[in-house]
């Protein structure tokens, strides 16, 4: 299978796919902000954005125009270079991580489409054999964005924000790694395509049923990874203004935002592909549709949780990750190991 695919992976194809990923994910991230506002509003019995376009759909465009045209302020005592680079770290790593994430099944472009008709398209921009590791590494590297931004901006809230970034990073990263170690042991590969192939047997073969504990741990760590409530310590407005993003305005702030939403999408995709059967057909529903539904569900779960739960203190996060989740993850790995040996 792998060998048969390889000749089709041309450099032009990879570039096209990269551009498509970039375009679609930025658009979807923008749409995600709209969805978040709408869902949060509904859960609080409000209407959300209503007046720009039908159902407020063009609010995204209005926000985009606002972000692009806003004045870009660099504070006087900030370290200018780092201050300016930091947002692009967040955005870039979020998109780079998506390169190794397969979203759709492999497909062939229909013959009737001019130019590209009949071309076989593999599902993934770069099916590297350390896919999971690469994604986690990239998302971890993305944390440099808030860290450097907070330290470069000469603002006490920024400093607290970046200190919290470090704390959060130290806490959840262990749990993320350990929680998906057990599924990796079962599949025996780090490539997400292999993960998908492992769960071809329909609903009952989903990884969730074999590794429920790992799934829950991964979700919790994923929430921390994307700074979502209950772990939104980095920019919790009630406590640290905007944390690392306090001094940012305009498009630089927008890049943090897009990065965060792209990360949310990445985590949703990973959860869908690793634990929830990936893009295999489910009964009569086509694989590409079911995977979108799964991703949308996890994305919705993040919004749902944000509307429902309070957030926790940094020390509680460390306590939770080191004293509760990590032991559970280790026990899960040991049990998985025993079960595999016997």
């Amino acid at each position, binding site marked *: 299978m792998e060998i048969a695919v390889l000749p089709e992976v041309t450099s032009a194809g990879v570039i096209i796919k990269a551009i498509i990923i970039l375009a679609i994910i930025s658009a979807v991230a923008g749409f995600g902000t709209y969805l978040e506002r709408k869902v949060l509003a509904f*859960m609080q*019995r409000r209407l959300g954005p*209503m007046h720009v376009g039908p159902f407020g759909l063009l609010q995204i465009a209005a926000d985009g125009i606002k972000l692009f045209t806003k004045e870009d302020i660099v504070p006087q005592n900030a370290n200018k270079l780092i201050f300016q680079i930091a947002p692009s770290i967040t955005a870039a790593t979020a998109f780079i991580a998506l390169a190794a994430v397969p979203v759709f099944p492999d497909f062939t472009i229909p013959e009737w489409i001019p130019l590209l008709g009949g071309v076989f398209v593999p599902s993934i921009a770069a099916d590297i054999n350390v896919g999971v590791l690469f994604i986690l590494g990239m998302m971890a590297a993305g944390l440099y964005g808030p860290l450097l931004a907070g330290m470069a901006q000469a603002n006490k809230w920024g400093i607290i924000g970046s200190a919290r970034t470090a704390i959060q990073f130290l806490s959840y990263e262990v749990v993320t790694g350990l929680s998906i170690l057990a599924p990796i042991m079962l599949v025996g590969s780090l490539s997400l395509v292999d993960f998908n192939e492992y769960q071809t047997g329909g609903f009952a073969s989903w990884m969730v049923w074999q590794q429920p504990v790992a799934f829950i741990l991964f979700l919790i760590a994923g929430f921390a990874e994307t700074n979502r409530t209950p772990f939104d310590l980095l920019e919790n407005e009630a406590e640290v203004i905007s944390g690392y993003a306090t001094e940012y305005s305009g498009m630089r702030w927008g890049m943090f935002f897009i990065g965060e939403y792209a990360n949310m999408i990445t985590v949703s995709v990973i959860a869908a592909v690793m634990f929830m059967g990936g893009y295999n057909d489910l009964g009569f529903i086509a694989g590409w549709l079911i995977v979108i539904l799964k991703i949308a569900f996890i994305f919705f779960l993040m919004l749902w949780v944000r*509307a429902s739960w309070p957030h926790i203190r940094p020390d509680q996060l460390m306590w939770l990750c080191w004293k509760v989740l990590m032991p559970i993850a280790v026990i899960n790995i040991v049990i998985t190991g025993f079960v595999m040996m016997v």
Partner: protein
Amino acid sequence: MSLEQFKNRSVGTQTYKMVDYEPTPDTGMGRFQRVVSRTFRGELFVGLYVTMREMINALFGGGMHTTKYPFEKLPISPRYRAIHDMLRLLESGHYRCIGCGLCEKICISDCIKMDTRYDENQRKEVTEYTINFGRCIFCGYCAEVCPELAIVHGQRYETASEQRASFSIFDDMLTPKDALGQQQEFDGFGAVSPNADDNIKKTPLAY
């Protein structure tokens, strides 16, 4: 919940529900047990259920709370002190103000200016009457003091203006001649809104 229960002020006869605070554990094992029991009590899922219920209720059950303000307006309470109205006598249609000048005297921000003269029947006639709404603090003293219920607070609360001094003259505040039938009588400052009973609800603290 009926109005009577709210009016019952005698503390001893009511049924209060005391919050059951557990004692804080001081041993490590006790704390551990508390963590375990709290983790598996499922309260977090109750939270998720509540928001989902509200969302479904809002979307499909008509529970949406938003009033689209400039297009929809809620009735305001009769106690609200908005821009003044000058009322007319219902029988003759003549304005009620007798030019006594009490409102001008009592106005604590000195924003009412009026002038009167005797007309041909030796009755007092208001020749000039302005209120500077840039100064008015909407204290309501003028309406309180008026012996004829001539000056009252009306329902116009959208008072944003481009200038600090924004005068309103007598004829602007006076009920139009042809709208005499719609003139609303002033209930007085203690009046509750007509739908006050419907607005009393249980405080939604319990889930």
